[in-house]
């Protein structure tokens, strides 16, 4: 098989796995952050605190910010 010798299957496999995990992870964290923010807003309006949700949203925002910085570092190292 010609393809078996000329395609870099190792790099391709890494791209598939890492991009799948990275993409789903970022979407999950960002979506959980939105849930935290919305729940915090609901609790705050009801006068029931909801600081745990605010903390959750903050942690998610920090993780996303870290990912963005990491992405820029990857571009710069290329």
């Amino acid at each position: 098989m010609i393809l078996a010798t000329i395609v870099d299957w190792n790099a391709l496999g890494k791209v598939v796995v890492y991009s799948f995990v990275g993409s789903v992870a970022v979407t999950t964290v960002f979506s959980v952050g939105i849930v935290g923010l919305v729940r915090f807003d609901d609790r705050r309006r009801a006068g029931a605190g909801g600081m745990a949700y605010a903390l959750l949203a903050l942690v998610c925002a920090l993780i996303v910010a870290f990912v963005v910085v990491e992405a820029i570092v990857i571009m710069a190292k290329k």
Partner: protein
Amino acid sequence: MKNDTILVIVVATALAFDYTNGFHDTANAIATMVSTRAMAPKVAVVYSALLNFAGAFISLKVAATVAKDFVDPTLVTPEIVFGGLVGAIAWNLATWSFGLPSSSSHALIGGVVGAVIVAAGTDAVNGEALISKLLVPALIAPLLAFAIGGAAILVAYRIIGGLSPGPVTRGYRLGQIVSGGLLSLAHGTNDAQKTMGIITLALVANGNISSDAGTPTWVIVCAATAIALGTYSGGWRIIKTVGTRIIKMDTAQGFSAQSSGAAVILTASHFGYPLSTTHVISGAVMGAGAAKRLSAVRWGVAGNMVAAWILTLPAAGAMGGLAYGITRIFGANNAAGPIVVLALFLTGLGFIFARRFRRPTTPTVVAGAEA
């Protein structure tokens, strides 16, 4: 062999290609943002243009030329580079006129390969590299992005299900602005360097700088400016296709498509397996739509895009070969050839534009399509 007239023509043509690359690929970064109203169309192109400009300065490890892996580099002359650029520009403009996103990098490689075949025959082309570094990635990129974009939107819907749509929409719009910014930055980094590489190659070939010299600062600034101006000018036909004609998307789909696209592009870049941004983003948009409902994707539009992707290499190659063939009629190192080709090309462009500009696609038209 020194001919400053040919050098000036090659540099100007390379910058023109950079400009078309900018407006052709604006859709990759901003189409979903504009479609979901995360940003106003005109603000989005300014945002993307500035980040494309900045991206061009992030990494300056410029390759000798984007085509060096695919053809025998010892055979490449300024006239061949010129022919390749003309082929790539012609294909970019042709696909733009039909509102079809296609890879500018593939067009450039196709153009240069076509010119080299006319100059030296098929033996000068590295067929294995074409399969492993261009054709296989072109097959994998949209399929991978389709699967990942689909998985991401299913996860997002699962998590946000039951929440009131207003705050969720605002949240994902913010996410789209961030992910669209990353895509713009990555585009400036990747694509402006191709032009820098080509101009540097032409300067080396013409004896203006030595082969071990770095890229001159003026080349970096000019390439960054050309791609930013191209991005700013829009390319609204393609933005309309990617943003509204493949699927009618909500903000969660827009965010999932963009973040999946950014993840695939950056991961691939990190592992040295470059994929076309256009193929990735288009695949991710289709995946985000199909995961919600298969019939949500306009498969006819998707089919036209895939046809354009398949045709990119041979069509740009044919046009690049033709441009080089006409140039060669006037003999080697003769500026008359490129001048005649440019005159013919600009005349043809004028004719096409005169017809197309009767019904231009503007930011207003694109915004209206989402309403």
